[in-house]
């Protein structure tokens, strides 16, 4: 299913997502922002190796597979970012001694990869029916050489930017769950970016709401 975002650099690129497209995982989703596409699959709560089990919470694992080549350190660091966001929102205390695994496959990367991964992971978690404290979304913005703040950059914009900032925002109080930044920026610029991203997150949450109501309206017959 699709939903439009407006064109233009102060707005997010058009995004769309598809639910439940894989048959073996417990939840799956494919999220597209502009040309960046990420496929996410969630398995859980499933069996866990005794060496990895935690007695009072579920063990959360995130795997990010790049489009070409083997996963390297960059993927590892993105995995940790996504893992920290998920750990804050999934109610892991409801499934002790089990494991929740999120596998993300990059289908195409044309900018804002980390936020697309976060959105795909959240949609797949909703599809799998895992209990969560809130939903989350990822938004990327760049500060270009003129000091202008632009949302949802393409690869070209990211290369020419002075700073790239990615935030993950939760749905209940629009608070920051995770931030990953690269480049130099001032405190005022950071606060402006956070405010812009929180505003843009509203659109993504509305999209989640629309896709959930579409999914369940078909089931009700």
């Amino acid at each position, binding site marked *: 299913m699709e939903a439009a975002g407006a064109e233009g650099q102060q707005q997010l690129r058009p995004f769309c997502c598809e639910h*439940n497209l894989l048959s073996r995982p*417990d*939840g799956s989703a494919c999220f597209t922002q502009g040309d960046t596409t990420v496929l996410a699959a969630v398995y*859980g*709560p*499933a*069996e*866990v190796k005794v060496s990895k089990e935690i007695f009072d919470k579920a063990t959360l694992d995130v795997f990010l597979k790049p489009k070409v080549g083997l996963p390297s350190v960059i993927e590892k660091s993105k995995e940790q970012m996504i893992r920290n966001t998920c750990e804050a*929102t999934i*109610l892991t205390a*409801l*499934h*002790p*001694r*089990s*494991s929740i695994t999120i596998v993300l496959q990059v289908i195409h990367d044309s900018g804002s990869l980390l936020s697309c991964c976060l959105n795909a992971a959240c949609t797949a978690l*909703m*599809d*799998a*029916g*895992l*209990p*969560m*404290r*809130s*939903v989350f979304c990822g938004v990327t913005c760049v500060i270009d050489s003129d000091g202008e703040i632009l949302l949802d950059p393409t690869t070209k914009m990211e290369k020419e930017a002075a700073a790239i900032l990615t935030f993950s925002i*939760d*749905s*209940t109080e629009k608070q920051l769950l995770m931030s990953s930044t690269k480049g130099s920026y001032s405190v005022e610029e950071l606060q402006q970016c956070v405010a812009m991203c929180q505003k843009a997150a509203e659109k993504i*949450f509305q999209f*989640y*709401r629309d896709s*959930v*109501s579409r*999914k*369940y309206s*078909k*089931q*009700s*017959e």
Partner: protein
Amino acid sequence: MALPAAEAVSQAVLAGDLLTFPSSSGEKVLCGPGLRRQGHGQLSGHALAVCKSGVVRHKEPSVYWVDSQQKRYVPAKGEYVIGIVTAKSGDIFKVDVGGSEQASLSYLAFEGATKRNRPNVQVGDLVFAQFVVANKDMEPELVCIDSCGRSNGMGVIGPDGLLFKVSLSIARKLLSPNCDVMKNLGELYPFEIVIGMNGRIWVKARTIKHTLLVANVLESFGNMTTEQRKQVFKKLSDNVP
């Protein structure tokens, strides 16, 4: 997003939304699957927080729950499930029910079983059993007898037949008393069926071809609208040999 509960019924909600109740009504509210109790700081009155995304449902007088789709089963006490016996260790069988842990089934929990008279259960058999212990902190335990000691339909599921998996919501729909799919299908092809709340269904019809037909219809009906279902049944009834 906070919504009064009465307005939220039949609306899609995301995890993190709040369903508020007016503090004036002293009624007790039953919190079903997908909802959690939450204290409410600013607004007076209690609230339920949504923890699974789906559609809010309400049953008079005071039961609220969230309908959501799930493929992975989480054991709950009192539910009937189909399990696959994976190991025999000492006095218990280890049974795979599709959850995060294997359940244990004592060999004495069968009708007429004693220490001398052991039930005839092999590794790889299907059993239809009920949970007596199923919470997040303990290993789940199954039994094949009810509280009076009678098997009541539970036990090893007979030879032949086909086991397949559907999503949990389809299994619940099939178990509802007025399921017209089951009635229509039964008129076309007589069949034996066991439905587990863990999404596993065992079917046996007169011939292998009929068994496969019934299994295909049950697997696919969840994604069809009423119109499409009627068409499928019409096509099938035209082809009944």
